[in-house]
């Protein structure tokens, strides 16, 4: 077959960290969908019976699932701030290269700050005990 020109794709672009923030938006979105399932399971267990809630607590409170929840919290903070960045782009603002780089840095700093705040609150509530 004749080699037809392809539109540029990931194999062709030189890596730039604004690319990483874009890919991370999708990855964190998928992680958050999985976390949404945990949220529904938690609510259904709370509505069902003391026994089913105890079972859910044992599962959600287990170390591997707790670690996943910490990851989920981080994914939430990132997706929230990077989502705001996308909404700003949708208004046609901040699309210049230097602006996109600056907003990527702001997103990462804001993510770390909100994550630290929420994680500290969760620890204080004993969720991680």
């Amino acid at each position, binding site marked *: 077959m004749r080699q037809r020109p392809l539109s540029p794709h990931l194999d062709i672009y030189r890596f730039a960290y604004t690319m990483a923030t874009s890919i991370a938006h999708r990855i964190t979105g998928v992680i958050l969908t999985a976390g*949404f399932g945990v949220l*529904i399971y938690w609510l259904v267990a*709370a509505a069902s019976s003391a026994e089913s*809630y105890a079972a859910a*607590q044992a599962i959600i409170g287990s170390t591997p699932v707790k670690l996943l929840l910490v990851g989920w919290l981080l994914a*939430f903070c990132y997706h929230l701030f990077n*989502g705001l960045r*996308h909404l700003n782009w949708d208004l046609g603002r901040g699309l210049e290269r230097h602006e996109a780089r600056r907003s990527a840095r702001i997103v990462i700093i804001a993510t770390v700050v909100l994550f630290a705040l929420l994680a500290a*609150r969760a620890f204080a*509530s004993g969720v991680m005990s």
Partner: protein
Amino acid sequence: MSLQSPLGRVIGRGSAKQGVSHFWVQRVTAIALIPLTLWFALRVTGLPDYEHETVRAWIATGWHPVWLILLIGTLAWHSALGVQVVLEDYVHEKGIKVAALVTSTFLHVLAVVAGTYAVLRVAFTFTAG
């Protein structure tokens, strides 16, 4: 019966404004999720503990059921649209793609119905004791 072609019937009538519905709903739900998810994250991490009684009391408090049901519905809608795009982009085999899209839709609807029912059940049956 009209002898006009389908194209002839629509020409000159302008857009039905449906073409950007996926894009638009993704943004509208994103905006709604900013206050809803922040409210949820701050409240849940602020609970004194995660015992059954505490969680049920929190769900049933005041207008919390309204915010929780809005959160569940909006989150599911935003998540369903996001997962749809990811599946369409990365699953290339037609049969598997359709099966995955249908499964995702079913799971998202199930999550909304189960989550809403759980919140209402707690709201209507909780009595402090």
